[in-house]
């Protein structure tokens, strides 16, 4: 079973992102369970949503306390919420930012991490460009698909069609695709550097 925890703020589509991720996994014939952290959400307040993906029925309903992957929709949360709590060593970290892990002050935490698990994407900028609104959730899903290889971009696109219609769907598909390609390129670059070292 693969467990993903998404951190963001009310209004950023955190819960929708987890739901769409579960739809994308379902589209690939897998079992998936998405649920929010059940707070009384307010715009701007920290929000957490969870998604489990497995090849068997998922019975477990506790919150995800030891995720395999983290998606951080707002880097300002790093100073407010213990977003890394329980993250498995070497787990995927995808942050919506145009800064590096070093610039975010995370160099110590991720010292022993494989480089291809440490990923950033400027999802807010990408969303603004394609959707016209600073909602980073969908491009981050595209980024997550590239980062984890767990789901295909085309499944994310199917999930977009389930949630949105018309221009908004088109914009989100363009945003998810751009983020997918950006992250894919960053991973290839990280692997190339590693190979060069070896």
């Amino acid at each position, binding site marked *: 079973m693969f467990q993903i925890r998404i951190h963001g703020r009310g209004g950023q589509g955190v819960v929708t992102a987890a739901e769409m991720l*579960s739809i994308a996994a379902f589209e690939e014939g897998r079992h998936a369970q998405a649920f929010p952290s059940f707070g009384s959400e307010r715009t701007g307040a920290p929000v957490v949503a969870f998604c489990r993906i497995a090849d068997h029925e998922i019975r477990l309903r506790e*919150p995800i306390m030891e995720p395999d992957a983290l998606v951080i929709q707002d880097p300002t949360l790093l100073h407010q919420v213990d977003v890394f709590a329980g993250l498995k060593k070497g787990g995927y970290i995808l942050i919506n930012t145009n800064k590096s892990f070093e610039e975010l002050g995370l160099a110590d935490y991720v010292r022993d991490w494989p480089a291809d698990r440490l990923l950033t994407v400027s999802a807010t900028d990408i969303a603004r460009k394609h959707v016209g609104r600073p909602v980073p959730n969908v491009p981050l899903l595209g980024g997550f698909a590239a980062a984890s290889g767990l789901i295909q971009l085309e499944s994310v696109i199917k999930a977009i069609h389930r949630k949105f219609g018309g221009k908004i769907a088109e914009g989100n598909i363009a945003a998810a695709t751009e983020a997918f390609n950006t992250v894919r390129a960053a991973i290839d670059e990280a692997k190339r550097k590693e190979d060069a070292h070896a």
Partner: protein
Amino acid sequence: MLKQTEGSHAVAEAVALCRPEVICAYPISPQTHIVEGIGEMVKSGELKDCEFINVESEFAAMSVAIGSSAGGARTYTATASQGLLFMVEAVYNASGLGLPIVMTVANRAIGAPINIWNDHSDSLSQRDCGWIQLFAETNQEALDLHIQAFKLAEELSMPVMVCMDGFILTHAYERVDIPTQAQVDRFLPPYEPRQVLDPAEPVSIGAMVGPEAFMEVRYLAHAKQMQALERIPQLAKEFEACFGRDSGGLIRGYKTEDAETIVIAMGSLLGTIKDTVDAMREAEHGGHKIGVLGITSYRPFPLAAVAAALKNCKRFVVLEKSLAVGIGGIVATDVRMAVTGMGLKGYTVVAGLGGRAITVKSLTTLFEKACREELDLVSFLDLDWKVVNKQLERERTTRRSGPAAESMLRDVGVIAARIG
């Protein structure tokens, strides 16, 4: 058709497939998405011959439901928590009058202090109101139980609550198999009311009954629930024949055959318990012989079925999301009655009140203690004793100790940073 969807939406689709004629509801978290979903289907014309009535309160919701059901219409509503409490007088009337209303309760805690999260305090507070209460383990079962509920309610002419864990199920996206209209039509015949308010054939419903017959009328409600004990397992079988799924029934055992310890619970918590039990059975240092008993039908309470399921075990743990203040467990009291004279050790564990997460880690420690018979008769899972004792001390030493909940929240500190 298999679909990845929200629990609330799955229930909305199931209710629509049952061809309700009147839906009256007042929004309250975490039930809101269900009635919103049905409302949209009525508005779009997807759900035909159905009137959606916006009411001004939960009291009005149940009152309208009583009127429409007495008028011969298949009637549905949904509520939770304070909303259920607000409609209580009418809830008793619905069952007293024998009206087959189906209501979803998206289980949520009751205030004060106000809390929107899940536990079973709301529907369990209506334990004795005369409604049948069925608890869903998964969203698939929630969907299936609604279809069974209409049939059961209408056959017996008694109302049925389908209880599903608020947020944990209502707001969870998971895989559900949504039946076709033809399948549901084959299972659920059109509503044939036992009594109907009809100007062409006038009758009175709800007249005063004095001491000469009141007990007999009340006993009839009990007799109906005893009939339900027979019908619920049969309906589950008929459902399986029609839909190919094992759903509903009175109880459901899991690895109970050789179990020395059996954990009893209701609702979505059963999944987490099953995962815990599987891990404990496979444990390296000699697996524990532990099993699970899920109670689907809380009212009527299946005394005989529970006794039969527990007959070979040595001890049982009732893990419940409810608290009978002043005694301990609510479900546990019923289970203890079921096993009277069987010589079993029984433990009551109150857990998950107001949405407190129930984790595999805590359950493992708890069940290991239970297997060693080291649990207290009544205990509270993951209770923060430091916070409790600090408040008790404050009250001992200060007359004007102030509002307890607010003081305890301050003692707990900032909670925005917490995941679970």
